[in-house]
């Protein structure tokens, strides 16, 4: 159970200890600085207090370039440490490791909807195994939300719009239940858009998966949707020009009209469903209609899972974040 009057948050991910270390450093430096200024002011104020109205007027001191330089440069150097340390952590925090387990999240007013690749779905709860890197691919149905797990010290905004899957990764280190908050104000029930992250032993997680399995996997659900929406009319596996086959497209560069090349990743597939004329594949007529409003964000994620399944796994990039470590950039 939660401590009734905590002064320090739980630490339950590989990132949380590192953020806390930075916090201690920042607090120590700032604490010393505050103490130095408070003590100096107190001592000077007492020592040089006016004892009588007739005290002689002090001689002016107009400044000292030596002092000015010192108290500009020294704090600046200390700040550079703060910058470099913070930037390093930030880079790690937002660079998913190769092979992270993918889970899909859709934020909408006012709930978090989660899909596991094997098809399990949950709302305002996320079950994950301990000790395994998890990467969330997140979309918003409406306004901006922000996925925040204080115990993991991670957060990322979930922004609606074309080409904007938000990604967040973490590696839980401690079994337990942790708060999930929406951190970006999103309207009336913003403070109700909360939930729990359940970190489980791997075996318990497997048990949970099988207990809640039985649905179609995301890729299977995507295939069904692919048929229902009529995508298969033009994009059936094995389609030939002028129809565009999607087999082995995911993870490969695609030549566009106008000469540019784009990597066929989640963001590109999503854009091509919502706004097909934005980046047209070279050699194919721009005839596809938009599916905006006809398919939910969850549906888009299922379609993407299906299209991904049409690529041989060995050819899929490990992580689709352009910044992914050892990721295939360009």
């Amino acid at each position, binding site marked *: 159970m939660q401590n009734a009057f905590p002064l320090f948050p739980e630490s339950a991910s590989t990132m949380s200890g590192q953020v806390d270390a930075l916090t201690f450093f920042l607090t120590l430096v700032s604490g010393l600085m505050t103490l130095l200024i408070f003590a100096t002011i107190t001592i000077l104020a007492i020592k040089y207090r006016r004892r009588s109205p007739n005290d002689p007027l002090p001689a002016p001191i107009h400044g000292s370039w030596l002092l000015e330089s010192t108290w500009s440069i020294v704090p600046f150097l200390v700040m550079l440490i703060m910058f470099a340390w913070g930037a390093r952590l930030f880079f790690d925090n937002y660079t998913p490791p190769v092979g992270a387990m993918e889970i899909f999240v859709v934020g909408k007013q006012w709930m978090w909807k989660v899909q596991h690749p094997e098809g399990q779905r949950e709302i305002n709860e996320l079950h994950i195994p301990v000790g395994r890197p998890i990467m969330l691919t997140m979309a918003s149905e409406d306004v901006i939300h922000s996925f925040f797990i204080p115990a993991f010290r991670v957060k990322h905004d979930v922004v609606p719009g074309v080409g904007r899957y938000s990604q967040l990764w973490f590696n839980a280190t401690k079994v337990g239940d942790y708060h999930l908050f929406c*951190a970006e104000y999103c309207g009336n029930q913003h403070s109700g858009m909360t939930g729990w992250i359940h970190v489980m032993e791997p075996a318990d997680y497997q048990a949970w998966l099988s207990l809640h399995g039985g649905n179609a996997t995301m890729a299977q659900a995507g295939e069904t949707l692919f048929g229902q929406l009529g995508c298969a009319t033009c994009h059936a596996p094995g389609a030939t020009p002028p129809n565009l086959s999607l087999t082995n497209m995911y993870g490969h560069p695609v030549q566009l009209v106008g000469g540019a090349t784009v990597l066929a990743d989640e963001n590109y597939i999503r854009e091509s469903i919502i706004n097909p004329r934005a980046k047209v594949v070279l050699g194919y007529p721009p005839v596809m209609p938009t599916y905006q409003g006809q398919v939910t964000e969850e549906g888009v994620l299922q379609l993407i899972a299906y299209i991904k399944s049409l690529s041989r796994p060995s050819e899929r990039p490990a992580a689709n974040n352009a910044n992914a470590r050892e990721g295939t950039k360009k």
Partner: protein
Amino acid sequence: MSTIPLTRLDEPATRQRPNYLNVKSTIGSWLLTTDHKRIAILYLLSITAFFFMGGAFATMIRLELLTPQGDFVTADTYNKLFTMHGLIMVFLFLVPSIPAVLGNFLIPMMIGARDLAFPKINLLSWYLYVFGGIFVVYAALSGGVDTGWTFYTPYSSTYSNSAVITTALGVFVAGFSSILTGLNFIVTIHKMRAPGLTWGKIPLFVWSHYATALIQILGTPVLAITITLLVVERIAHVGIFDPALGGDPVLFQHMFWFYSHPAVYIMILPGMGVISEVIACYSRKAVFGYKVVAASSMAIAILSFLVWGHHLFVSGQSIYAGMVFSLLSFFVAVPSAIKVFNWTATLYKGSISFETPMLYAFGFIGLFTMGGLTGLFLASLGFDVHVTDTYFVIAHFHYVMVGGMVVAYLAGIHYWWPKMTGRMYPEAWARIAAIVVFVGFNLTFFPQFILGYLGMPRRYHVYPPEFQALNVLSTAGASVLAVGYLLPIIYLLWSLKYGAIAPANPWGAKGLEWETPSPPPTDNFIETPIVTELTYDYSKPAEAPIA
């Protein structure tokens, strides 16, 4: 030209002597005045009204947060409360506070001028401010607005069912008031300085207002553009920010913070100017490193335009952009730190006394230091990811805006009260209030740093029960703080009738504003002063003002 009879100004002024207050007393003479001092008083009255209105909203927020459940007001009301609190405090109190009241009153006098360069535009700026304020109040009364003062899209442009357009137009109009004030200050400081008052001699209060004015005229138009685009999207459904219409919601954040981060310095730079004046006076010393302190104001004004992206570290901007904005945010901390060090060094070998303005100045340095240092925490990317959009950020900017700016404003109001009204405030009561404000402030906002690190998000109507103890502490502090704010209202009003008659220079201060009677005549100076000595030359005794 002046027809004011010469009087012996080393004697306490009497009521009969004509001054800017008693020269005419009709309502029309106030509402149509072009006297910068009277316009300052108009601003003083109106921003005080808005301050207490914003404070009333804050009171209701703190009452709601006493318990984890949403039991005092509904979620909808709560969202409107924090939105109105933010809007009123930022746009109708903090931005105009020191510039429009103290800056308006003092800048012409400090540089030996009879008025600002454009007195009618000055009056126009007050009308625009009131007009903008009426829009905002009307929006509040006609159902309120629930977007947060930041108006983030697409919530504000598409999803909110509240009075977004009315409110946005109010902010738009009030913005022009700010632009006009800035324009007036820049022209006045350039063109109307008294003979001998070179750039190297103008008071630091004037320097900091010059820097502020630059931000006002360069930044505020961007706010106007952003708001216009928001209103256009909301009315005409032109896709600018809403992705459903082909827009980009993060574009709004870039544009909004391109103004609103520099605006933070609109809110704090004038306060820094007040503190420089007060510290010099009560330690009888020239401000240590005058040139560096003046230059640091300009450096802040310039760098303030290069750091907006630190509000978007978790919004999905490139992580490399995040790193650049983080580094630039550390740069802007340097000139702020320089000021703190120089104020501290000013005390060295001074002759220090502890009147109320000096107590507030000490409070300012302490609270601003804490606000600034926690700003470094937030500039550090790895830390910011965890605490952004939590109470840590709330605590940080209240240390700067309330601990800094409001405290500096109170320092300035007390310091120049005798000049503005011709009356002394009661020193004992004022010292008590200064201490109450300091204690109440820390009690209110320090627990919020801890709450933020624990992970309590901002703008939460209900919250997990383990956060309650710290919230109760914060609400208790807020009630102490409220007493600290109500006391000055009572004793300052009391002093208007019962306060001791103020001499021209009650503090033995340096500066041209003290060389004219209290309250000053309409034309400020009987003769245009000629400046020969350096600023803050406290090594010579303050001369009794001579006519």
